[in-house]
């Protein structure tokens, strides 16, 4: 589809929406560009039905044709190019793939990142114009790399939060564009927060103190939200300090919104909401997980929990409609900011042509970036750059020599745009006219040795055919590092399996063993499972080669296990033994002679090695920092053949290099992150000296993985047995320090100076230095400024140093540039954990200026004194509801956060409404809805000499009330209840007449016809489809029963009568009920003997209930019921407590007040009866009906009654009575049933109870 077709389509949708709403007098507010985006979004949300709202709470946002809202997929990725492929049907080439984040981080050039992101946004707009993708992108990753083993290290900009922030700032700016009104595209910073290990991210808690949390983990979010008005963040899978981030009001609302001021939407990571329920077990039901997520502030669920359970969460009373509305307002406000709902001519990006995708300009930009990322790690004897004129033969060796590794979350560019090093070098030399023989040998492989296998179970099959299965995750011992998890799958597996690790299982009977089957999944390359007896080195009884190379099925990191069988070696073992599963990596392939010969015969050998997406990725961290496969052997073997061996590494981050970096025969080492589609174009320009490498490491390169604390340890500071983390706290020798990188030239630093030597937190300083290029190449240098506080008390354990400024400068050879770096002293804060606010240590602040964190060329210092002038930073105003009906009153409130990130209480807010005719706001923030329309309510607050304000929009809808109600010609006063009751004699029912309070509301009356009977007055909002029903019920007097007779009175109408389960003779004077199987619970409507009588009025019912036994699992219950049908009733019962996790453990009985409406049940009040009910198990129950309000009372002695609680339910043709049910297993548990490994209903003796009386007093409404 070309642009013009898209424009036509957009115009058609716009006019369709407009015509769909032609019944309105004017353009609806949400399409009227004279209103603010937030007002328009609020108006749109107000028009949605509940089912539409639910369908819009997820990633795949539903189309709403009647409103002209198109379907929209919130999810897309654009970390270093739009995640997409070529689409010839709409004229799109494959998008440009730029260097990935770890590579970008090594440029130390935010402006370059901004240009890249702007180009990505151009391509995104061009793709969007074809209607095939949205404009919301879940990029960038701003989490600093706490631990290089993290599987997503390559997606981050680096180890230091300041560097990560500045690089992300460039990305965010570029993606958002510079238009003052419209967003070019929408960045989402992720994964909020402390999602820094993959293997356990769905179930784990990242535990830390508030200092590490604020100073390190939250720093990028704070800066991007405060400085760049970041419109979206993604809440992570993990918990922090045992609270899932996606369920935490504190993390999302208090910190992200009220402290930092984020306006926009929060999306949960895919399945993060589900993880609240079945990952962290933080919520017992998916409805509760939905409620927790929405209430905390996750506006959109990338899983499908919200879209399935929001309505039931709302109906169960777990979630107010206001929270659903607020989530949708946040989402639609951002969608509107992209111009989606505006005429195309107003939006500056709408005519972006498909030809912008993979345009020549963007290809050139990818190539420009790719030469600015490489980091020169070693260059002994200035072997680099190579002089092509002096070379006759160059050997390109290694698995990446003719490969283009793009890294995750990249688009798929055109094949012609993907240039491998081999292709690039050949083309470069040919273009320059050099006659150099370029040879290519792969020579090695990148087969991952981490995460070899996931093991779910093993089976022992005996000669008699019997098979015994063992759960592999229930090992009795294991090698260090082994973990158990299911990732995003449903199957628990042994994970983190490294070469040489093992798991052990006691008491495995291997008598007459014939075969062994192991249920396993191969995430990447696979490995070998040895089954041994007695120890990891014990006797081998079986061996399974589960490798990709051997043809075994690769399930990927999300895969489930598949069985692999082997014949057991019969070594004569009998009886129970300790069986070991020992895991081995496949043998490295030997380096072939042809490769070595090529190296030997070349003037120079360039070895291209690295990592790929199998080394580490989502769900899978690295277990080692070694180069994967046989690459280390390859490097050493080539170096042994050729003394001019150059190693070019392209990896997702730091790798261990100690084994080869000191070799004299390897004079030069070059590193890049995944360098994009033009990686092969860039490398010859670097190798042959056209461009000097100017990148710097964005992370510390540790000597060994052993230098790192456990990956699950999120503390940064050194502790007993654990090194400190990152350049902030790691104080041991490293291979290469943070910020390190050589050049073909040399730079001299001189004339170090600082603008002020006495500073306060309110100042800004400028640190300056003169940098002279003293070598033979024009080149870039990255001047870095680190700050330390040597006067801080040691007990405070301040960082060794923190990066606080940098600048990449291009300096021609022989020239000097003065580099001035501005630093705001307010950014030098620490977090005071006691006072919960920023703090500034007094004393010296040393500003170390250098070429890396270790190569400090000079220092300047300033003395810090005084304190931060506390000023108002963020005002956050909100109301309990944004969608109101005329006459509604809602409360607005505000919070005020100061610039030290603490809250100030007791401030006065000045409230105003921009449209008082629609909604007024009083001085105390009380908002009153006056007439239909939208209004923006603003709160202005002054503190610390600064005045700030915040606002929110409200939409006022027509009133759903009744102006007058007449019954039999007499006016009736309507209170809060939605039901009016009359006690009458049987006969014709009076006529009911009603008039709606608002002419925009339709009213219809369905007459009762007869007594007993029910008249229904229905009020309908034509716009939203909302309806409200008021019922007038006509009933006769109830008939009490003291159960003195041996037969039931005529007033009783048993439902599903089973005479065997009730008796009036077993205990004279009592109605004895014995529970049958079943209940009247949601879809399980099979309980016998619901004994009810007509009671279609208001009433009070009393009974004395004696339980012969305590109600047992899973849900036996007995008591009173107000009953319309099996799907609509109020139950007040003494019941068993259902223990979800331990069906076999009896739980104490409880009183429960339950309501079921339209088959959806909710428990409103429950009261454990431990210590309340006597040994005689006697309870006096009283249920009072007043209109739609049911009030439950109980007593243990019949004299003193306690109020249990109230419930509202609008039942019709009401009956009242008693019941005794065996109980139903909850539907969720039933769904897993079937008796084949699922849950089964525990067996319990039937519940037997006696009702000593049933006293009913009927009345009309007051």
């Amino acid at each position: 589809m070309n642009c013009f077709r898209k424009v036509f389509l957009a115009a058609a949708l716009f006019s369709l929406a407009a015509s769909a709403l032609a019944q309105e007098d004017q353009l609806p507010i949400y399409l009227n560009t004279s209103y603010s985006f937030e007002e328009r979004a609020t108006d749109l949300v107000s028009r949605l039905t509940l089912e539409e709202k639910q369908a819009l709470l997820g990633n795949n946002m539903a189309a709403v044709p009647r409103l002209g809202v198109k379907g929209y997929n919130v999810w897309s990725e654009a970390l270093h190019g739009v995640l997409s492929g070529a689409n010839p049907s709409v004229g799109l080439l494959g998008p440009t793939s730029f260097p990935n984040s770890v590579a970008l981080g090594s440029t130390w050039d935010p402006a370059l990142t901004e240009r890249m992101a702007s180009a990505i946004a151009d391509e995104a707009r061009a793709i969007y114009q074809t209607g095939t993708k949205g404009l919301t992108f879940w990029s960038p990753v701003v989490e600093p790399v706490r631990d290089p083993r993290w599987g997503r290290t390559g997606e981050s900009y680096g180890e230091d939060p300041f560097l990560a922030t500045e690089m992300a700032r460039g990305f965010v700016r570029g993606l958002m564009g510079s238009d003052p009104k419209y967003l070019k595209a929408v960045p989402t910073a992720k994964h909020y927060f402390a999602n820094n290990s993959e293997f356990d991210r769905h179930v784990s808690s990242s535990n830390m103190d508030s200092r590490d949390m604020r100073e390190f983990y939250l720093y990028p979010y704070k800066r991007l939200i405060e400085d760049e008005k970041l419109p979206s963040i993604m809440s992570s899978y993990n918990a922090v300090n045992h609270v899932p981030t996606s369920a935490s009001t504190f993390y999302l609302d208090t910190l992200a919104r009220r402290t930092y001021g984020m306006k926009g939407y929060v999306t949960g990571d895919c399945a993060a909401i589900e993880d609240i329920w079945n990952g962290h077990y933080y919520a017992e039901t998916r409805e509760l997980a939905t409620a927790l997520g929405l209430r905390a502030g996750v506006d959109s669920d990338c899983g499908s929990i919200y879209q399935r359970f929001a309505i039931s969460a709302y109906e169960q009373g777990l979630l107010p409609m206001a929270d659903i509305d607020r989530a949708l307002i946040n989402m639609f406000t951002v969608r509107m900011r992209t111009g989606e709902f505006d005429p195309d001519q107003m939006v500056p990006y709408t005519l972006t042509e498909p030809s912008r995708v993979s345009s020549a300009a963007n290809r050139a930009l990818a190539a420009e970036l790719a030469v600015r990322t490489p980091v020169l790690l070693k260059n002994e004897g200035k072997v680099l750059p190579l002089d092509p004129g002096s070379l006759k033969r160059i050997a390109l060796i290694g698995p990446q020599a003719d490969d283009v590794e793009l890294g995750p979350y990249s688009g798929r560019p055109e094949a012609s745009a993907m240039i491998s090093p081999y292709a690039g070098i050949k083309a470069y030399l040919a273009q320059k006219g050099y006659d150099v023989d370029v040879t290519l040998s792969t020579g090695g492989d990148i087969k991952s040795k981490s995460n070899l296998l996931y093991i779910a179970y093993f089976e022992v099959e005996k000669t008699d055919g019997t098979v015994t299965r063992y759960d592999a995750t229930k090992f009795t011992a294991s090698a260090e590092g082994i973990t158990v998890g299911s990732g995003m799958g449903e199957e628990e597996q042994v994970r983190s399996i490294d070469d040489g690790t093992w798991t052990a299982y006691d008491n495995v009977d291997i008598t007459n063993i014939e075969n062994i089957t192991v249920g396993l999944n191969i995430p990447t390359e696979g490995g070998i499972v040895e089954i041994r007896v007695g120890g990891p080195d014990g006797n081998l009884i079986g061996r399974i080669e589960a490798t990709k190379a051997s043809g075994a099925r690769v399930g990927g990191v999300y895969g489930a296990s598949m069985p692999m069988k082997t014949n057991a070696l019969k070594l004569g073992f009998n009886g129970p033994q300790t069986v070991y599963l020992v895991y081995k990596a496949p043998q490295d392939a030997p380096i072939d002679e042809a490769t070595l010969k090529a190296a030997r015969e070349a003037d120079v050998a360039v070895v291209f090695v690295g990592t790929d997406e199998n080394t580490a990725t989502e769900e899978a961290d690295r277990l080692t920092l070694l180069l994967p496969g046989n690459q280390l052997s390859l490097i050493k073997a080539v170096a042994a053949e050729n003394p001019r061996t150059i190693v070019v590494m392209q990896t997702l981050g730091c790798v261990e290099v100690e084994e080869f970096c000191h070799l004299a025969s390897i004079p030069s080492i070059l590193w890049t992150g995944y360098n994009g589609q033009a990686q092969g174009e860039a490398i010859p320009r670097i190798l042959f000296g056209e461009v000097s490498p100017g990148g710097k490491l964005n992370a510390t390169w540790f000597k060994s993985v052993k230098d790192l604390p456990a990956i699950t340890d999120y503390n940064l500071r050194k502790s007993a047995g654990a090194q400190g983390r990152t350049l902030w706290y790691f104080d041991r020798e490293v291979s290469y320090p943070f910020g390190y990188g050589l050049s073909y030239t040399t730079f001299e630093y001189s004339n170090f100076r600082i603008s002020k030597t006495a500073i306060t937190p309110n100042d800004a300083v400028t640190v300056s230095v003169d940098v002279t290029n003293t070598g033979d190449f024009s080149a870039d240098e990255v001047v870095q400024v680190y700050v330390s506080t040597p006067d801080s008390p040691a007990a405070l354990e301040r960082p060794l140093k923190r990066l606080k400024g940098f600048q990449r400068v291009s300096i021609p050879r022989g020239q000097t540039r003065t580099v001035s770096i501005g630093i705001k002293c307010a950014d030098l804060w620490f977090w005071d954990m006691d006072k919960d606010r920023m703090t500034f240590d007094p004393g010296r602040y040393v500003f170390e200026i250098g070429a890396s964190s270790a190569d400090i060329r000079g220092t300047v210092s300033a003395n810090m004194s005084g304190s931060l002038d506390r000023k108002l930073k963020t005002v956050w105003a909100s109301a309990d509801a944004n969608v109101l009906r005329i006459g509604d009153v809602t409360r607005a409130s505000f919070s005020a956060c100061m610039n030290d990130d603490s809250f100030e209480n007791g401030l006065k807010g000045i409230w105003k409404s921009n449209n008082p005719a629609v909604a007024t706001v009083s001085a105390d923030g009380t908002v009153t809805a006056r007439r239909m329309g939208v209004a923006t309510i603003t709160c202005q607050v002054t503190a610390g000499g600064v005045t700030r304000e915040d606002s929110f929009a409200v939409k006022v809808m027509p009133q759903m009330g009744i102006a007058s109600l007449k019954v039999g010609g007499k006016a009736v006063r309507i209170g809060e209840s939605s039901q009016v009751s009359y006690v009458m004699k049987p006969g014709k029912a009076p006529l009911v007449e009603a008039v709606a309070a608002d002419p925009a509301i339709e009213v219809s009356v369905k007459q009762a016809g007869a007594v007993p009977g029910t008249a229904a007055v229905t009020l309908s909002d034509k716009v939203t489809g909302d309806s409200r029903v008021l019922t007038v019920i006509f009933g006769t007097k109830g008939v009490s029963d003291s159960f003195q007779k041996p037969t039931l009175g005529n007033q009783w109408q048993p439902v599903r009568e089973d005479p065997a389960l009730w008796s009036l003779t077993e205990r004279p004077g009592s109605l004895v009920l014995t529970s049958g199987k079943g209940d009247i619970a949601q879809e399980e409507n099979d309980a016998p003997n619901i004994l009810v009588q007509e009671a279609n009025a208001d009433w009070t019912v009393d009974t004395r209930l004696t339980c012969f036994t305590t109600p047992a699992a899973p849900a036996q219950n007995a008591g009173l019921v107000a009953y319309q049908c099996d799907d609509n009733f109020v139950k007040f019962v003494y019941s068993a407590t259902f223990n979800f996790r331990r069906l076999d453990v009896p739980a104490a009985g409880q009183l429960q007040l339950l309501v079921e409406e339209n088959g959806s049940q909710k428990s409103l009040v429950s009261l454990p009866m431990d210590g309340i009910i006597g040994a005689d198990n006697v309870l006096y129950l009283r249920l009072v009906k007043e209109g739609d309000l049911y009030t439950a009372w109980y007593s243990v002695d019949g004299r003193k009654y306690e109020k249990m609680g109230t419930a509202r339910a609008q039942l019709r043709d009401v009956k009242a009575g008693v019941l005794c049910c065996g109980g139903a297993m909850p539907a969720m548990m039933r769904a897993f049933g079937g008796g084949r490994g699922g849950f089964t209903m525990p067996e319990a003796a039937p519940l037997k109870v006696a009702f000593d009386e049933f006293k009913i007093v009927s009345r009309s409404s007051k």
Partner: protein
Amino acid sequence: MLRKGLWVFLLLCCFTAAWGQDTFRAAVAFRDGFVAAGDRIARLDAEAKPTDTFPLQAPLVSLALVEDTLFALDTAGTALLHITPSGEILSRKAAPSRGRLRAIAADGRTLWAVTDAGEILRTRDGEQWTILDFNAHYQGFYPEMAFCAVAAGGGSVMVAGVGTDKTPAAFTSAGGSVWSQRSLDYAEGGVPRMLEAEPLSLSYDALRDRFYLLCKGGFQLTLPSCSHCNSLSRYPVEALYARVPLAFDSLLLGSGGFVRLEKP
């Protein structure tokens, strides 16, 4: 290489067909086993071994079990059939739709059906139907669809079919009135791709809380709760007709008599 793979594929198809097994196009879990139907109807035990086989008046293409009551569609798709596990037709309700009924599915007491005219139907009693004319309702917003697959469970229902340009598409809904398009993208070796195979049926696995879209070419697209975590796998059949979960196991049915019980 491709030719070699094709030969293996064809040999495998011939081999399974040579077994003389029935080709089943639909199945439901039924009393600790399965009822499978195609040209004939059969009871299978929990290990997918046939225990009884019965002839049918007409081939069946879809089955659904609503509270122990078995419903079916035949190839004509003009009526909803109430049948016994041995294939006896107890009653026949004319389809209340314009299009041919192509697939049915049960979720609790609700029976869902879809038609090749883009209608989505639901009923709780077999008498009163709610019919959504999807193509009319979503004209201009979603592709015009001919549906051929439906599955329900876990709080949602999914329908799938092909658009007028034969592009496959799927939609989900919680209540049946409002539908969201479920992207059928997946990644293969890191490369983003879109499903191209023609859908044949849908299955919902409650234990794993995921849908499966079964397609021509033996393709199966797994659609988990995570909305962009789809994954594609392929079975050695020309057409994958049905996937029926039973606790942790799944029965897979395909062309050429393909019957496989997949265990975790």
